């Protein structure tokens, strides 16, 4: 596997493709079944956000080795409208699409490290890291 | 130059050793190893100084240093015994060399003397410290494994009923492991009811309660029921005082009550046979009647 790979999100079916790829990479990296599911689910949420709110974007995967630990970095990038209020989207139950409002706070709980950056009119980048236990 | 210095040191080793032993013995009172019997302390000191000299003579002797380290580690002596000992040794030796008449030692430069002495002693101290940390790391990793093994056994009681006793402090890392074990165990044993016993959990704070609630909800999602048992009075108090809502989960004070409830949930109950001593009483009664 290449150190970094990515999937473009353009249509709905790409969500499934992105999470399947994430699961495979996680499996290869040595994650357990539960963490594989956590990673795949987080990717699914991120990819759906791209599809719903920005129309298109990418999900990229990178294996990270630091201080004897191995991790997987998932980065979701889009150049969509951006998020006006970052603290609001991190609240459980907040939704603009009629969903459960579990997306971003859920992704944060599924990951070990989480970073959200957004600029209105320019786009959004979400990065999360999961460490192999 | 180095050779000349080494010669001086080796030829006069008796004097240096004597000085070192004196200093070490006077230091003993201050350090935290004063409870060690004098005899053992002296023989170990002799061995220590022998190892140092052998190492200087042969330009490092890792095997004997390792042997010595192992011995001191097994004795349970602190690392400071070794670092202090070498520090004193350095001082004594430098003192001795510098106090030699100038023509004998060939060099006057104090820094060069220091450099030679450092070159002799640094590898020894490095190796000894490595041996010590190595043994600590091993202990830590062994304890980690032991803790994981201790984590969460899942025990089948009767068909479709299992129990999981939790013992010790629960942190996030352990909680995740416990939850995964719990769910796999529930599936593998096909349990409809699982009893989680928290008698052995010393403190239930919001974090621990949160993990227990998550576990119970996950158990429900896979299609089983969770009963929380072993809630001590002080735990009940903290749970309510912290405002944690456990009302959605069946709870019981003891494992026994929990087990009876689990039987009820799986449409069973405990049936007691007629007691033997009742029969005996009847027998006695009938004899009396005659």
């Amino acid at each position, binding site marked *: 596997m290449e150190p970094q790979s990515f999937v473009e999100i353009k249509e*709905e079916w790409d969500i499934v493709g992105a999470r399947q790829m994430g699961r495979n990479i996680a499996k290869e990296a040595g994650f357990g079944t539960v963490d594989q*599911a956590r990673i795949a689910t987080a990717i*699914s949420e991120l990819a759906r956000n791209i599809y719903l709110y920005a129309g298109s974007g990418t999900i990229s995967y990178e294996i990270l080795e630091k201080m004897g630990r191995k991790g997987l970095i998932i980065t979701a990038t889009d150049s969509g409208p951006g998020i006006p209020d970052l603290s609001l989207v991190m609240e459980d139950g907040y939704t603009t699409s009629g969903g459960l409002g579990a997306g971003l706070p859920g992704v944060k709980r*599924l990951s070990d490290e989480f970073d959200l950056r957004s600029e209105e009119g320019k786009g959004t980048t979400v990065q999360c890291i999961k460490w192999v236990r | 130059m180095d050779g000349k210095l080494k010669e001086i040191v080796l030829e006069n080793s008796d004097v240096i050793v004597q000085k070192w032993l004196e200093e070490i013995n006077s230091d003993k009172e201050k350090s935290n190893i004063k409870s060690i019997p004098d005899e053992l302390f002296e023989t170990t000191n002799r061995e220590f100084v022998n190892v140092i000299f052998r190492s200087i003579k042969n330009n490092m002797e890792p095997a004997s240093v390792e042997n010595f380290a192992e011995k001191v580690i097994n004795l349970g002596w602190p690392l400071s015994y070794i670092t202090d000992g070498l520090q004193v040794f350095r001082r004594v030796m430098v003192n001795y060399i510098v106090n030699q008449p100038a023509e004998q030692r060939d060099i006057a430069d104090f820094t060069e003397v220091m450099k030679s002495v450092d070159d002799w002693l640094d590898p020894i101290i490095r190796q000894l410290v490595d041996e010590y940390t190595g043994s600590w790391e091993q202990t830590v990793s062994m304890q980690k494994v032991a803790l994981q093994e201790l984590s969460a056994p899942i025990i089948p009681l009767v068909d479709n009923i299992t129990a999981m006793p939790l013992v010790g402090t629960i942190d996030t890392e352990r909680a995740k492991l416990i939850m995964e074990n719990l769910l796999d165990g529930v599936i593998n044993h096909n349990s*409809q009811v699982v009893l989680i016993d928290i008698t052995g959990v010393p403190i239930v704070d919001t974090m621990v309660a949160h993990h227990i609630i998550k576990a119970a909800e*996950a158990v429900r999602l*896979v*299609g089983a029921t969770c009963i929380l048992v072993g809630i001590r009075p002080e735990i009940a108090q903290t749970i309510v005082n912290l405002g944690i809502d456990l009302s959605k989960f069946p709870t019981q004070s003891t494992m026994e009550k929990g087990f009876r409830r689990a039987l009820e949930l799986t449409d069973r109950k405990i049936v007691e046979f007629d007691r033997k001593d009742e029969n005996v009483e009847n027998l006695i009664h009938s004899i009396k009647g005659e």
Partner: protein
Amino acid sequence: MRIPILKLNNYLLISIQTEIDDNTAIQFQEDLLNKIHQNGSSGVVIDLTSVEIIDSFIAKVLGDVISMSDLMGAKVVLTGIQPAVALTLIDLGIHLQDVPTAMDLEQGLVKLYQELGE
């Protein structure tokens, strides 16, 4: 792609065997409600043994379809949720609180009898 819905007396049985994308999920919601209406079913078992991932969208569709079925008089039981899926749902903050669950199809049917008081 459509998820097959089987009829068994008063009940409907669904076993989801494939990766569910959003369209399939919505299609399934429609199909199931229509089937309940056609057959006047009183109970539904949805078996998720082969499902490896449920994200918040699919969870919402499932939750919705359960509430909708309830409105139409059919009780839904979810069966075979995998441990990894259960843990992920909890992490997402989705508890499916009022949904009855069971470990497998057999126990799911038992649960339905109980829920319906039959």
